[in-house]
């Protein structure tokens, strides 16, 4: 086929169309790419061309034979995502509270996102209350169902907690959401001192709320280990308090969030739990 035979649709937009094809396969030089990106903002026709050419390019890529990735890659990606979330950089929370059409800064934190959408806040209260009830019910079921076990199991692709990196014999468990089962925090007990690594808990407002870690032994009432806050730029684990029961007798850990800044005698809003096998 001659190189001229495809010029049927080339017009005064010809040079931009040429750029569209190369742009779709990332073959433009930097200057052309900058120029074309600027042009794309105001040219629907070129955006459509880029979309079409990108489809074509994807088909070429998809047709390539090759080895499968190592199985560990999946775990690596999910662990990296989990770590990012632990660092509070997951914008998903921001997306939850802000209309998708608007531009979301990836670094936007929960608090700012909430402030940007008061309507969402109000409409969420009813659902929140329902979930609190579900969470409280869940902890009762779990506590009732666990009659004994071995301390020390952990799950989830969490980062090694700092105290446990340093200390032989330290135990760590991952507490997951009572509703979604997403990992929210890792609890480590090192010489009876409990540490929390809030890998998935959103930051709270210390003036208004407090997180509380609870230790549970069999059918006994939960006992507060201590209260803690999750601050916006918090990194790594924080110590919460001392566990009182012998470690082998503890059958579950739970985290609740409470109004005010004091630790209550019993949990009211349980949000995460780990029961020991």
């Amino acid at each position, binding site marked *: 086929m001659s190189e001229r035979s495809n010029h049927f649709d080339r017009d005064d937009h010809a040079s931009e169309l040429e750029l569209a094809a190369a742009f779709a396969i990332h073959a433009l030089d930097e200057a052309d790419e900058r120029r074309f990106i600027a042009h794309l903002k105001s040219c629907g026709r070129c955006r459509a061309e880029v979309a079409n050419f990108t489809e074509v390019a994807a088909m*070429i890529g998809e047709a390539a034979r090759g080895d499968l990735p190592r199985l560990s890659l999946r775990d*690596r990606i999910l662990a990296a995502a989990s770590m990012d979330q632990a660092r509070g950089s997951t914008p998903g929370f921001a997306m939850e509270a802000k209309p998708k059409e608007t531009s979301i800064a990836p670094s936007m934190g*929960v608090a700012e996102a*909430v402030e940007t959408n008061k309507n969402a806040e109000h409409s969420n209260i009813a659902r929140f209350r329902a979930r609190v009830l579900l969470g409280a019910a869940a902890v009762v079921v779990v506590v009732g169902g666990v009659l004994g076990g071995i301390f020390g199991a952990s799950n989830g692709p969490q980062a090694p907690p700092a105290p446990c990196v340093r200390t032989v014999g330290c135990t760590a468990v991952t507490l997951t959401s009572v509703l979604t089962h997403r990992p929210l925090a890792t609890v480590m007990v090192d010489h009876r001192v409990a540490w929390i690594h809030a890998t*998935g808990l959103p930051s709270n407002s210390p003036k208004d*709320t407090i997180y509380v870690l609870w230790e549970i032994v069999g059918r006994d009432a939960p006992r507060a280990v201590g209260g803690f806050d999750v601050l916006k730029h918090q990194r790594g684990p924080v110590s919460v308090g001392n566990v009182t029961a012998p470690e082998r007798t503890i059958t579950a850990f739970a985290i609740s969030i409470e109004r005010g800044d004091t630790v209550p005698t019993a949990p009211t809003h349980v949000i995460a739990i780990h029961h020991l096998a």
Partner: protein
Amino acid sequence: MLATTIDTMDPGWCEPNGNGVSDPTLVDRVTLGDESALGLLYDRYGSVCFRVAHRVTQNTALAEEVVQEAFLALWHAKGYEEQLGSVRTWLIALTHHKAVDAVRRESALSRREQSYVKPVTRDGSDLNDPESIVLRDLADGDVRDALLDLSPTQREALVLAYFGGYSQREIAELTNVPLGTVKTRMFAGMRRLQVRLSPLQTSARKEL
């Protein structure tokens, strides 16, 4: 504040598995911080993304890094919108883009020189030359046939760009032709591929 804090943490959309869940739904879940949705999207497209990345970088570790970057970009909700096309296309394109950036960044000149520059021929028939090896290694017969239907110079420009990660200017230097000629060849080749492959795109969309 308390209410919203908890609500954003437990959005309530989790399902036990992703069977039958559409890609856009999974992306929505990912943007809400659902790691399992990210895992499901990886299960669907991780392999093809890796193949693209590996084909471009020719390095397993680098390819894995590229795929990880692509999926974490999705995790960070950077860029995907439905008007950009399917999630599959977007992920493949993003992976390819990052793979090209990686080889340019690493300036893996030895790899690229060994792999592409020396033995490039123009007739597309010699299986010992990399361009033909790329074509031979294309599993999809329709795509391979469409590429073979291009003129050798168009095919060369596209293969060097897509699988070699070369820019138009680099291709002009490698093939010793004017930059404008490379641009023309690339556009004409892509347009022709589009004509050949668009019916397949349409049928694929119908299947989805």
